[in-house]
């Protein structure tokens, strides 16, 4: 079995996945509530919490799988991209667990992890496919040909899709992180009520700053009572604009690379409008959409393990460019 560890942002997670891709346990301790009052993830607070939680989630993952450390043959840990101070906690714990038991270690790229959430049982998706990875930190279109990697076709030039949802939610007074709340409210509104701009960028890149600004100006133009009455319509129209941008580009990318299948992964894959708009796309199960360690263990199945003790000098990386 593979023990996966993930601490790249504000979820502390551990999971046990069998060599053939069955999830035996998947423990995620989210810090969202802790960061809510700051309206965003505070790296130092996140890191302090990771240290408190990293061993408890490992123990819980073992317990939940009714397994012992002896059942673990290798350790998979997120090396980047993410908050370096947060990543280093998972990496330190992962190295120590691997080294103390003379086990191999597999450093995993977080984005590869998101894609590999699709490779888990009971219904693993086989490459090739075109994949939209949309989360609070990433909006990427990926050409996935093999289990062990992908090529980037497009990305966001400003905000990530999940970030755009959270910022829109804040403008509507829905708190942080408000993406899910905005989605709930949108279901009661008319998505055609407002015509927000669908970002026009060249090629397969995304831009969400325009739609965010449009929402801001609309909110400002409304009186308090008017705003309360139109909130659901605003949420629905805003959501429609973002989802339309995501769907259009995913379809264009799929056509461009000649892929026969589409998939959506990452936290934004939980959005109901997006799921509705892509009936033919494969969408990661909800529990595997937001950051988790099962996806990290899954990705590790397709990477070469570093044998004991060759991994002791590994460092974390903040972005893929620096990797």
């Amino acid at each position, binding site marked *: 079995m593979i023990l996966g560890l993930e601490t790249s942002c504000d979820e502390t997670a551990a999971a046990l996945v069998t060599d053939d891709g069955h999830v035996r346990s998947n423990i995620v301790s989210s810090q969202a509530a802790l960061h809510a009052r700051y309206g965003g993830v505070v790296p130092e607070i996140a890191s*302090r919490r990771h240290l408190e939680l990293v061993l408890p989630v490992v123990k819980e993952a073992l317990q939940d799988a009714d397994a012992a450390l002896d059942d673990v043959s290798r350790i998979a840990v997120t090396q980047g991209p993410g908050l370096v101070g947060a990543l280093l*906690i998972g990496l330190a714990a992962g190295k120590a667990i691997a080294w*103390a038991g*003379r086990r191999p270690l597999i450093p995993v790229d977080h984005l590869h992890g998101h894609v590999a959430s699709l490779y888990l049982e009971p219904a693993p998706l086989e490459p090739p496919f075109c994949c939209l990875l949309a989360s609070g930190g990433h909006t990427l279109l990926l050409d996935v040909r093999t289990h062990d990697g992908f090529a980037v076709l497009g990305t966001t030039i400003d905000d990530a899709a999940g970030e755009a949802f*959270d910022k829109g939610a804040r403008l509507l007074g829905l708190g942080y992180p408000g993406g899910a709340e905005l989605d709930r409210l949108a279901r009661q509104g008319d998505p055609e009520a407002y015509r927000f701009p669908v970002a026009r960028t060249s090629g397969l890149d995304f831009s969400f700053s325009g739609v965010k600004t449009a929402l801001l100006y609309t909110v400002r133009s409304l009186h308090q009572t008017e705003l309360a009455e139109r909130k659901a319509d605003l949420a629905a129209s805003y959501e429609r604009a973002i989802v339309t941008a995501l769907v259009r580009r995913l379809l264009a990318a799929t056509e461009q690379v000649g892929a026969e299948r589409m998939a959506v992964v990452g936290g934004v894959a939980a959005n109901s409008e997006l799921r509705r708009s892509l009936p033919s796309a494969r969408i990661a199960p909800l529990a595997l959409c937001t950051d988790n360690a099962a996806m990290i263990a899954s990705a590790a199945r397709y990477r070469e393990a570093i044998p004991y003790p060759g991994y002791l000098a590994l460092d974390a990386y903040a972005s893929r460019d620096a990797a």
Partner: protein
Amino acid sequence: MLTLAFDTATTVATCALVRDGDVLGERTTSAARVLEAAHDLLAESGLASEAISRLVVGTGPGSFTGIRIGLATARALAFVLQTPTAGITTLAALAAGSPGALPVIDARRGEVFTLLAGAPVCVKPGEVVVEKRMVCVGDGAVRYRAVLEADGVVVPPDASGAHVPHARWHAQLAETFGPAEDLQPLYLRVPDVDVPRGKTL
């Protein structure tokens, strides 16, 4: 009784292997590579991790990330090896290495961690309470040499080993061992939340 001790809180991380009070070996390294140093020390004595009977870790103060690397490493090792663990403050280890000297650790943002009437504090370099011709050691003493020397303090040369919290002292100072999860990081400062940012992943 084989003790593995390490401290990753300051500029130079240290690791020592001590058997019944005898220092078998000691290494300086970086925080991210502290286990590599531990591995090499054990290998030189023909040993591996299973031989470790107890752990001692530096709990800070110092670099927050460094402290966490140390504690995450100690807790994970203790979990696998089932070893009791002790925590020693980085200030105590520095002081033990230079009897009579005042430990001064770089706290960044223009501040230092030091001792005031024996208690760990975070102050401006000019607020370090010193007597004339007193010796100050640690990466904070090196960084703020000019300020401290103006107050009549003696700071050993930058390259002096006195500025490093050598892990042999952690091993020597450790008395109370217990569960590694009980060890708390000594941050001495609340998190900086001035610049909240969007969720990045």
